[in-house]
């Protein structure tokens, strides 16, 4: 599935300073029954966001009007657990385009990249500073520049670079799709398969 190109994202951020946020928290299994990719944002962080009777849990950050934006800032080891891409879909569908953390679980990171959500891994010191800035002033603007591979806080000297392989970077900048790439080398794949029958 195609996605929007990613270039420079300027946005306020939503802070979630919890470590090991797992995919079952991001989207509980009971909401994985859909056969289409629609409506997952409503159930993002469902059990942290809502009481059993579906009333909002006021203390949870997504229910706090002070915080909004297209960037989610999470604690270390974000996205651990299951391979469900629904977790990345829920984040995207809710309106986030970037997740910043000091460490990501592997599959979650891949899933994000595959649907056009940019996972930005920063040092734990820088992450702490972002949390401080956002808590102090929820209107602080973060700037994520994919081309330059930097993230900074607008109007301050806080800046850090991040890693991404050039293939994926190019894909995100141009909205290219991996499957199109592979379909273009189908002959090569079939040749490989014929040589290695299993």
């Amino acid at each position, binding site marked *: 599935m195609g996605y929007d190109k990613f270039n420079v994202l300027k946005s306020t951020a939503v802070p979630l300073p919890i470590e090991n946020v*797992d995919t079952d928290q991001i989207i509980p299994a009971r909401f994985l029954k859909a*056969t289409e*990719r629609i409506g997952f944002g409503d159930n993002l962080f469902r*059990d942290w966001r809502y009481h059993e009777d579906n009333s909002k849990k006021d203390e949870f950050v997504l229910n706090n009007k002070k915080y909004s934006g297209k960037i989610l800032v999470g*604690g270390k080891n974000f996205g651990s*657990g299951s*391979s469900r891409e629904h977790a990345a879909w829920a984040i995207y569908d809710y309106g986030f385009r970037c997740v910043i953390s000091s460490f990501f679980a592997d599959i979650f990171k*891949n899933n994000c990249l595959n649907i056009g959500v940019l996972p930005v891994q920063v040092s734990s010191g820088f992450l702490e500073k972002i949390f401080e800035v956002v808590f102090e002033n929820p209107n602080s603007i973060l700037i994520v520049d994919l081309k330059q591979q930097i993230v900074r806080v607008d109007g301050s000297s806080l800046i850090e670079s991040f890693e991404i392989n050039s293939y994926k970077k190019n894909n995100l900048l141009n909205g290219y799709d*991996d499957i199109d790439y592979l*379909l273009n080398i189908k002959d090569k794949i079939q040749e490989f398969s014929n040589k290695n029958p299993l």
Partner: protein
Amino acid sequence: MGKTLFDKVWDAHVVKKINDGPDILFIDRHLVHEVTSPVAFLGLKNRNIKVLYPEKTFATADHNTPTRNQHLPVKDILSSKQLKALEKNAKYHGISYWGLGHENNGIVHVIGPEHGITLPGVTIVCGDSHTSTHGAFGAIAFGIGTSEVEMVLSTQCIMQPKPKKMRITINGKLNRAVTPKDVALFIISKLSTSGATGYFVEYSGEVFSEMSMEGRMTVCNLSIEMGARGGMIAPDEKTFDYVKGREFAPKKDDWNKALKLWSKLSTDEDAVFDKEISFDGSKIEPMITYGTNPGMGISINSGIPTCDQHDGSKKTFLKSLDYMNYTQGERIIGKNIDFVFLGSCTNGRIEDFRAFTNIVKGKKKNPNVTAWLVPGSHKVEKAIKEEGLLAILNDSGFELREPGCSACLAMNEDKIPQGKYAVSTSNRNFEGRQGPGSRTLLASPIVAAAAAITGKITDPRKLTV
């Protein structure tokens, strides 16, 4: 420089390398289930293409299926829709489908090995993180997301940067009542849930070579819980014996050819790993988790760590204890429990049912405990009956349910109620994993069996004397 087992299998599957990008890896076996596939099939429809190699693709229904009355239509409308979608997609693309009620049906990671779909030296993917299970055979097996499912369906390839390599060596003799599950929970408690992120793990040493294939599957299954993409164990005679004669395993001449190839699948002596870790197997005790991630495990007779002993965020640690309603420093033994779940792709194989039955034999289930015993597949279910385990279990007050993932992820109606404690042989103790508000303690089948008898967290060694 020599190659690791992982290198050998990986390098043999690279179709193309992309500069400063991922490798394009050919996939020999693609396992598909109902939950992570519908959107992938929709993708194929939008591209107007068909599955490239349907004969390399195997579909089953497991995540979202009831474990009672499987002969009746599925009541939950959404679940039923998902199952029908897979059936329809499988049929349209010519993929073999072992749906509900099919004699080969079961949890995807249990049926792969059972039918010889899982073989040494192959690459296997599935839209489920515990695909790492198949590494027990010396295969490279890992979980993928739905976009990648679409990729493999349409091109039989996956794009992955080659992970780093870690070797975990455990020598020594395991103590009584220490099972493969305990070994895995022990490793995760040492490494944390992110300690192996970015790595592919090879397990080596006496403890693993002594282990049964079922045990190796349990260990490899849990690799993902330390953040690793997968884990693998070099195939040996035990592996070959297990595979031989199974439905999809090579036969006759092909078998001999395969054996020749497979016997080369081990790490060369001069191969180098990015990281090496070793433990003494004799130091491992029966394990149990007390918190809300699989890294929060302790030996059953020790105390829950205090905030100071815990590295990592104190806030997250206390949040986790608060969820479990436990206090730092207190002992876990003797705590009351409400539910016991025996099953999942971690511990839902015949060996697990044998171990459980062995403990409960001649005793009665505690009346305060609700026990869900869910075989990993119909084959396991059949063996439980044929080996006479069912009769023993029934005498002790246990019932057997029908196969599926069940309370491992609680997508169907098998949900642990709010606030209740479950000793579970599955793989994740995340908040709400087994149902909203449920509290999960991960343990081996025998620790689960001891808890089912006493209604408390009990050292199984105390129970059997």
